[in-house]
């Protein structure tokens, strides 16, 4: 269990120091600074550093170091989850979590730390519940905080210890709405010869719920296992492929089974509100959602990934002084859709001196050499579906006395495509049941973005 938590700024100055156990002294904060923060090694070789019987677990965020100290054989995964969650709390409370936010809110942070850890054991870290009773005026006032400042202590303690710690039971909205965002990150490693070495999709379903009371939700996807079990029949109505036009799509109240495609989900993980036992028995996703935004689930697919872009690079080293590039990119999704904010980083050797770059195709954007990143960056504001764009470049290299080996880092892509899922995943339905039987409106959006989209050269 945790013996202490420290927050440092970039220079290693202690901004927050909270000890939970008598087996460490405040001075261990210096040990971590000396051995890790001020260590001459440019790269951190491990997220955990054990010196003697003291272990320091750290994560970095913005200009902060968050460090948890343990003196036992701690469950390292739990410690890091705690740190991630602490970070989340900071962001949720202060909007940004950086040195300034920590300095401006240090009293509140100490209150939080006293609440979220008892004797080093993580307790309740649900932001909605915490905001009921850990507040100070320096927090940006938000709707919920103001309304609940006077909540009765008994209802707070029930909330903080009950079976649904993530939701208060007195939430009321005039209009009951839920927004579902399906956000996929597609990961690719393509070999220089054009073989797909690895392609998978990490999906995230983020829900923003503005629902009154204690709503029971049931959520359905075109999960292959479910559709096969249900006989795949049905047809008509309900979900259909995410289509172009509009930013979102309203979900029918009673989602019928769409015919078409189903998706083989390799694995998924759920927010703690989802009843895992139910999912294990019949793959039903049922839950009482937290209020506001939360990540309902994460999933992973590895089969039949629709790669939104094909990239065909040719990189020729001509002698020691010159490299020629030809990079062809084809979009592989419906012509009605388009990718936005696309950036292609094409690495160049460190001794590159000049790049002559030409891009061709309609709306081919601009490419520029960024010597500080050792790369040419090609930006395309909008890349239409079923389109081809290409870049050619000649890069001059400075002559060197000793051959400089160039590791040829991969070309990497960044993009986002709305209303497209690389996995083919669709939301079939979201049903909301509440005892007051209100009507609710549900919306769903889809987006696919580049995770780590690497094309080796």
């Amino acid at each position, binding site marked *: 269990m945790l013996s202490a938590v420290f927050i440092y700024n970039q220079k290693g100055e202690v901004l927050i120091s909270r000890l939970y156990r008598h087996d460490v002294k405040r001075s261990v904060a210096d040990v971590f600074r000396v051995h890790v923060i001020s260590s001459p090694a440019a790269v951190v070789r491990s997220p955990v550093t054990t010196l003697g019987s003291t272990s320091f677990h750290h994560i970095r965020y913005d200009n902060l170091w968050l460090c948890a100290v343990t003196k036992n054989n701690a469950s390292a995964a739990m410690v890091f989850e705690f740190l991630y969650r602490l970070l989340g709390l900071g962001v949720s409370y202060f909007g940004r979590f950086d040195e300034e936010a920590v300095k401006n809110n240090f009293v509140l942070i100490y209150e939080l730390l006293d609440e979220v850890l008892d004797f080093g054991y993580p307790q309740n870290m649900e932001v909605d519940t915490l905001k009921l009773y850990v507040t100070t005026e320096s927090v940006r006032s938000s709707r919920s905080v103001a309304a609940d400042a006077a909540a009765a202590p008994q209802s707070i303690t029930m909330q903080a210890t009950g079976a649904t710690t993530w939701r208060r039971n007195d939430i009321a909205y005039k209009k009951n709405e839920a927004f579902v965002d399906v956000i996929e990150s597609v990961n690719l490693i393509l070999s220089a010869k054009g073989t797909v070495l690895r392609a998978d999709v990490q999906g995230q379903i983020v829900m923003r719920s503005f629902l009154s009371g204690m709503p029971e939700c049931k959520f359905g996807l075109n999960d292959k296992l479910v559709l096969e079990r249900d006989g795949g029949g049905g047809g008509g109505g309900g979900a259909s492929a995410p289509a172009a036009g509009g930013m979102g799509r309203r979900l029918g109240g009673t989602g019928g089974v769409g015919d078409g495609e189903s998706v083989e989900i390799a694995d998924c*993980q759920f927010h703690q509100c989802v009843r895992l036992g139910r999912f294990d028995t019949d793959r039903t996703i049922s839950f009482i959602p937290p209020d506001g935004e939360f990540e309902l689930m994460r999933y992973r697919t590895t089969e039949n990934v629709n790669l939104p872009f094909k990239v065909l690079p040719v990189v020729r080293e001509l002698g020691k002084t010159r490299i020629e590039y030809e990079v062809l990119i084809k979009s592989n999704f419906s012509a009605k859709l388009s990718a936005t904010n696309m950036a292609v980083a094409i690495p160049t050797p460190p001794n590159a001196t000049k790049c002559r770059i030409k891009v061709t195709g309609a709306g081919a954007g601009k490419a520029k050499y960024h010597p500080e990143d050792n790369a040419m960056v090609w930006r395309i504001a909008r890349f239409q579906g079923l389109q081809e764009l290409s870049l050619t470049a000649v890069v001059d290299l400075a002559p060197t006395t000793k051959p400089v080996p160039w590791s040829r880092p991969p070309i990497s892509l960044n993009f986002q495509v709305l209303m497209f899922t690389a996995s083919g995943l669709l939301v079939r339905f979201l049903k909301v049941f509440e005892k007051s039987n209100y009507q609710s409106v549900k919306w769903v959006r889809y987006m696919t973005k580049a995770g780590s989209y690497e094309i080796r050269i």
Partner: protein
Amino acid sequence: MLPNDRGYRFSGVESSRKVHDLRAELTSEKKDPRQQRKKIAMKKVVANMTMGNDMSPLFQEVIACMSIPDLEVKKMVYLFLINYARARAEIANLAVNGFEDDLNDPNPLVRAMAIRTMGYIYVERVIESLIDPLRHCLRDRDPYVRKTAAMAVLKLSMFDRSLVEEERFLDMLKDLLADGNPSVVANAVAALTEISERSPHIKLKLNMKIANKLITALNECNEWGQIYILESLMYVVPQDSSDAETIIERIMPRLQHGNSGVVLVSVKVISYMMNYVSQVETLEPILRKLSPPLVTLLTAGPEVQYITLRNIQLLLQRWPTILQNQLRAFFCKYDDPIYVKLAKLEVILSLTTEDNARVVLTELTEYATEIDIDFVRKAVRSIGRIAIKIELAADRCVRALLDLIQTKVNYVVQEAIVVIRDIFRKYPNRYESIIGTLCENLGSLDESEARAAMIWIIGQYADRIDNSDEVLGTFLESFLDDTAEVQLALLTAIVKLFIMRPTAGQDLVPKVLKWATEDVDSPDIRDRGFIYWRLLSTDPELARTIVLSDKPEITAEGERLDMPLLEELLLQIGTLSSIYRKPPSTFIPFAKKRVLGV
């Protein structure tokens, strides 16, 4: 709102002036109807405390603030007490009255806070006055107070173990296991587990009935509580296979939890319970279900990925069939942190089979051109280990290594030579044709291990390398400056040369024997020198059989853990111990050794 962002560090004088000023603020008689002045003064005290300035002289004034009816001020006072009470035990006693008031407060949050804070203050008088109220708090009508009280018992036991036993707090904790509130159950479980972990004579043992109850409570618990309960299941010793199967089946759904701590502790319990499953057929489906969640953890933050990878490596050694066909999930992304890359490399190697060796090799060759030296070396080394592990892939590995040697990147060449030596040992008389290429790189070898490897190769094939005597002669010139590793290799290689080609070696042998026995400090080298000397001078034929005898076969499994250690580590999945591959007792003084079946 820090009082002064820039004036962080105070000299002694400044510090005492600061204390003086704050004292004035805390005791000011000025009108302060809403306690705003005191609140600001307290904030300054806390800020100074954070910076490491000693605020303990303000003890009396701060304690006086305890009576201020403001929760925020109270929390700051408590924080102050936690920080300084131990150093100033005599004044900590002054706080007792304040605590007693709070313990009787109608607000459960205040009662809980008092009990929580008192538990942190390891001062005789405070602890004494905690005992009675604690008993009441463990039965408080409010669950928040009960869960806090459960933790306070643990705090108490760390202060004085016997106190907890004498005052029958353990029994009260056990009663809380049946509490109707999940958070209370979870904290009681956590406290009991740690108390038993630290006590020399208390041993937690849970029977199936309790285990089943706890598992039922899992569904109601928040994520952290789930971790504590799952952790406690490691203290269940199943009576038969069906007990184990029941537990496995009931906690399987936890693998889908979004908190990696929950997932890994579930894996730990499942892996532990699998030891008790009698039918091998029952294991297969379990193992199949373990794989996807483990791969999913590789999408978490890099720190969690690292922990997962280290544990996958352990699981793979015990249950080689998990993660079949998942190889590609472990391919490195260019921007993975180095610790993730290195850990992935180990897993890749474990997952390499005859069928996928080719894909792996292409991948490793790719890594061998990256920038981080450790990573590149490990990639090269891995190629060599695949050659040794999978005979069918050996040819391809050797070709890949030769290509890498052509890059002339110094550390790549040296690493390659080291692994090629092992390949020669594993497959004698198969790859001698490449020796010529190796010899082109003699000049660039400046690391002991690589020099020793090259010398071994030349000695081993002294009869087939035309100029082996010249090459060894060159090495011999710097004999006295070399490391023991190189000296030892050179001594043996020259003796081999002499036995195989007496005329070529006859000038070198006396030289090396003389240096080895007279000018070297290392007893190993001296002893070996003398042995060779006597062997050669008494019975050359015997020398031949001994020096050129067949070598014991080497395997690629050098980094495998031996079974008892592996089993011990598997009981520690997800913990630091599993990352370091060391039993907890090696770095945690109080850790109890845990072995299977006890």
